[in-house]
């Protein structure tokens, strides 16, 4: 009788081990671990690619003269800094012989470029663009030669300034009044 019972018991134990431990472990934790390892491998490959690209970019950046990088940062600064710019514009106007009477922040000329010197500060809302912009309105008095010198300085300034609007009102004395709308840019 025991000759039959023991093999049957062994078979039942084997089936039990298979369905209770082997199969659940294989399809459960082992499969999940294999997936996690595959995911880690992908992440490690991406990290390696990133490290290679970072080294390549660093090498390319190091080829650029640090002075040029500094000028680039001045050309398109990381903040608005309109107060510092107004000081510089005042200095430029003084050097050019132009007398600035009023400087204000105006809304960007999105509505056809009309002058709006008393508008509240506003910046362009191009959400997709990394560049922000705002308009500065200036009122000035001076000769035509002074205006030309001032405009030349504005056009060649290291910080990018675009004249968006220029109104010249003449007089018999040769001293004119000007309203200038300048657009300034910065990197967001």
């Amino acid at each position, binding site marked *: 009788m025991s000759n039959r019972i023991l093999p049957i018991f062994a078979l039942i134990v*084997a089936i039990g081990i*298979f369905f209770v*431990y082997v199969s659940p472990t294989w399809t459960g934790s082992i499969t999940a671990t294999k997936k996690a390892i595959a995911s880690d491998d992908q992440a490690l490959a991406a990290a390696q690619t990133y490290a290679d690209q970072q080294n390549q970019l660093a090498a390319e950046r190091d080829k650029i003269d640090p002075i040029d990088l500094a000028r680039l940062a001045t050309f398109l600064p990381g903040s608005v800094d309109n107060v510092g710019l107004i000081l510089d514009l005042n200095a430029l106007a003084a050097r050019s012989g132009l007398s600035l009477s009023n400087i204000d922040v105006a809304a960007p000329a999105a509505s056809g470029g009309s002058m709006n010197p008393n508008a509240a500060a506003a910046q362009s809302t191009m959400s997709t663009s*990394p560049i922000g912009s705002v308009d500065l309105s200036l009122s000035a008095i001076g000769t035509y030669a002074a205006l030309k010198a001032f405009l030349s*300085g504005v056009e060649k300034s290291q910080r*990018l300034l675009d*004249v968006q609007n220029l109104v010249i009102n003449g007089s018999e004395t040769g001293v004119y009044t000007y309203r200038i709308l300048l657009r300034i840019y910065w990197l967001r």
Partner: protein
Amino acid sequence: MDLPRTIPTSFVPQPASTAARRFHSDFTGAFSFLAYAVLGIIFALAIGVFFYGRILSATKASKDAQLIQAEATIDPATVRGFVQLRNRLSSGAKLLDNHVAFSNFFALIETLLPTPVRFNSVHLTVTGANTSAKKIGLEGTGVAKSFNALAAASGAFATEGRIKDAIFSNIVVNRDNSVSFVLSASLDPTLVAFAPPSAPASAASSSAPLP
């Protein structure tokens, strides 16, 4: 007469045949062998699965550690720096392409406009974000000493070509025979396009009044 061998000669019961007993014992042995073999295989499989799971867990722990180490080497400030540099370079190039230099216009108008014609007021307006959509409007009022002088100015604008659609309106002859006018025109964007200096290194540093 001899009886056939298949006919029993006695009614006393006899034990089962030896062939049947052998078959029964062979079947039991085979079944036992099969059951123990299956148990052995499953047991070996369970041990294999156990150790394979341990190996996989150790491998995953190692990969996780490598990943944490790789993540630690990534500096967000460096990434930000690269992104900013890329944005500066690409956006700066676009902005420079659209940079406006009205000095070119004034230099042109000084050569085009006859001396007897002068402006009382000038209004220059830039609209549009990029070169293709950019429009530069010119509106002005002025006085010419004579009608001929005004005609010469109109002809000069037409000949030059970059001051487009120049329309002189509200033309009024004054008591002193001077002619007042209102000018409306549009400028070719190339006329006010900024041209960088030919020697950028020296010229830029010397001609940059603003930091």
